[in-house]
């Protein structure tokens, strides 16, 4: 069912929704961008729909709402502990198709990876509902179509922002009551069907090939280009790594909290272990790890889909202009070359 309503009416409905939900959307932090006189667009709670930045891609993804950057897990004293609490407000999140598809990957990582679910993820995830935002024509770094993540039906509401009014689709019965007074119209959201950027995925079909991929020269080029800053992973909707640590409140007492904080596989100390051992010493190796995780390992393990959804935020945020889409295409070319060489070797024998 679709509705047409004014911004004023939508804001009244927003107020009603906020009795039961915290409403999050990409918002503008004026002047707080990386460079002077640029803005930062990231998720925050909104007070009015006009605050939603719908015509630009946000710098950061909505994952921080359900997978907070810093998350206290429990508080402890010497002999007892108490779990951190979350309130019972729901979470209503304005999101794009790639992000909603990305959150399905996070679900897999936190809920279907191994025997036990991650309860700290579960308790926020269960509360989340989505308001789908249309992308118009998309942006120059997007490659969602190549990754098959340009569409979704996993949303409660969908919205189209027009200059003087909004079109809303209500998919989830639970939200119908908020719109009962509104004028009904035909509306279903549109999805982008092509991106300026096309990405070809590598087909790595044997462990022998994988080993050769590890040793490709192309990774070394990134040793001088990549600064290991981790901006790409922080922006990524599907990066789910964190470190867990204890914070002792007082040096003389055993009172404190256990918390988890995002981590990045691009940082030097990501694989650091006691004794100073680390697996991936160079930026190129770390970038190789990230690439293969996004477009090989995850799918090899969970089958259905690749991890990367092609949101392109890693390309947007990389201060060194390293394009992940280009890396994937280069890798695919290299894989094709390696396969051809292998078949020629066989033929030549």
């Amino acid at each position: 069912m679709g509705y047409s309503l004014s911004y004023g009416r939508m804001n009244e409905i927003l107020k009603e929704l906020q009795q039961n939900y915290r409403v999050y959307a990409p918002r503008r932090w004026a002047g707080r961008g990386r460079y002077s006189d640029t803005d930062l667009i990231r998720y925050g709670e909104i007070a009015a729909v006009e605050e939603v930045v719908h015509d630009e891609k946000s710098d950061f993804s909505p994952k921080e709402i359900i997978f907070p950057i810093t998350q206290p897990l429990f508080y402890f004293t010497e002999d007892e502990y108490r779990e951190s609490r979350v309130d019972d407000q729901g979470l209503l999140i304005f999101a794009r198709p790639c992000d909603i598809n990305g959150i399905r990957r996070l679900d897999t990582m936190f809920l279907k990876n191994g025997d036990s679910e991650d309860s700290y993820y579960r308790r926020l995830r269960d509360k989340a509902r989505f308001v789908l935002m249309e992308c118009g024509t998309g942006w120059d770094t997007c490659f969602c179509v190549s990754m098959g993540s340009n569409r979704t039906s996993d949303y409660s509401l969908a919205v189209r922002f027009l200059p003087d009014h909004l079109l809303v689709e209500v998919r989830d019965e639970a939200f119908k009551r908020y719109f009962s007074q509104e004028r009904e119209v035909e509306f279903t959201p549109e999805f982008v069907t092509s991106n300026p950027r096309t990405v070809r995925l590598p087909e790595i079909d044997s462990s022998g090939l994988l080993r050769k991929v590890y040793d490709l020269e192309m990774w070394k080029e990134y040793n001088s280009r990549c600064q290991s800053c981790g901006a790409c992973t922080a922006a990524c909707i599907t990066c789910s790594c964190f470190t867990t640590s204890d914070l002792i409140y007082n040096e003389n007492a055993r009172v404190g909290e256990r918390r988890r904080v995002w981590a990045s596989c691009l940082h030097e100390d990501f694989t650091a272990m006691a004794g100073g051992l680390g697996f991936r010493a160079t930026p190129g190796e770390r970038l190789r790890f990230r690439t293969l995780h996004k477009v090989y390992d995850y799918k090899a393990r969970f089958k259905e889909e690749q991890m990367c959804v092609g949101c392109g935020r890693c390309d947007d945020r990389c201060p060194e202009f390293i394009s992940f889409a280009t890396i994937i295409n280069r890798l695919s070319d290299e894989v094709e070359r390696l396969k051809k060489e292998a078949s020629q070797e066989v033929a030549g024998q």
Partner: protein
Amino acid sequence: MNHDLDIKKLRNHCYRQSKVPGEFMLQMRAPGGVIEARYLSLVQHIADTWGNGLFHLGMRQTLSIPGIKYEDIPAVNRYIKQYIQEIEVDLCGVDMEVTEEGYPAIGARNIMACIGNIHCIKANINTTALARKLERVIYPSPYHIKISVAGCPNDCAKGHFNDFGIIGLAKTEYDYDRCIGCKKCIEACAKHATGVLSMENGKIVKDTCCCVGCGECALVCPTGAWTRNPTKFYRVLIGGRTGKQTPRMGKLFLNWVTEEVVLRVIKNWEDFSAEVLEHKPVYLHGGHLIDRAGYNRFKEMILKGVQLNPEAMVAQRILWTETEYRSNFNVRPVNGVRAEG
């Protein structure tokens, strides 16, 4: 040629005497060093028509055209009238009457600036915009003043060697919850700046005493835990100069002041100069004026009527260090004997 030329008068109209008798170099102002590129054709026209075909990128970012013959100066002045009108009045909002006599004054020198945040990734401020606002404050004062504006504490604009060096600062703010403890900001601060950041319990603490406001922490932070306070802040250096006798680097006068404070301070310069020079606008570096008045009197006059913002820091004293070429007591001849002069 006519050997009776009033060199001083010509200089006041921004024509500099050449070693070739009767020739002059015109120095056209370009406040902040940024103008629309189309004006370059005008420069070329002057150089080809009245000059010797050469063009000098002036040391203070003037558009300098050498080899202009004395008798052609009236024609050149008529020709640059429109440029002066468009740059000084229309663009900078200078309150002046544009005549056919060329530039009305040379005292307040062209304001220099680095490219700033209209281009530079390190910049914290729009140096071009500030230079234009300052032009409105100082021009066409007959009193000498040299200002340079830098977009960040890197000071590519060499504000440290001007009467006033104005440097854009970022007041970076920290969001505890967004920080992932990656230490990138600590490394960046130690490498590029003063190393005031450290780690405590997986998060960052800052020793605010010595943050130079460079913004490197905000540039490097992957999560946006460090962001710039959108209000722009400035550092003001004073008394820097080059010269034959006592060149010296400028010293910190104000730190963390707002643009409003900067503009008000510069506005007071004319009154200060007039007092020290007994109302005779002679050419003397700003630093010498401060020396004559003494820092305390300078401070009193230059801050007159200025409402300092709460974050502002003001120098309690200035410890000048100059290179003193008159006594030369730090240099000795190689063989221990001073050559007979």
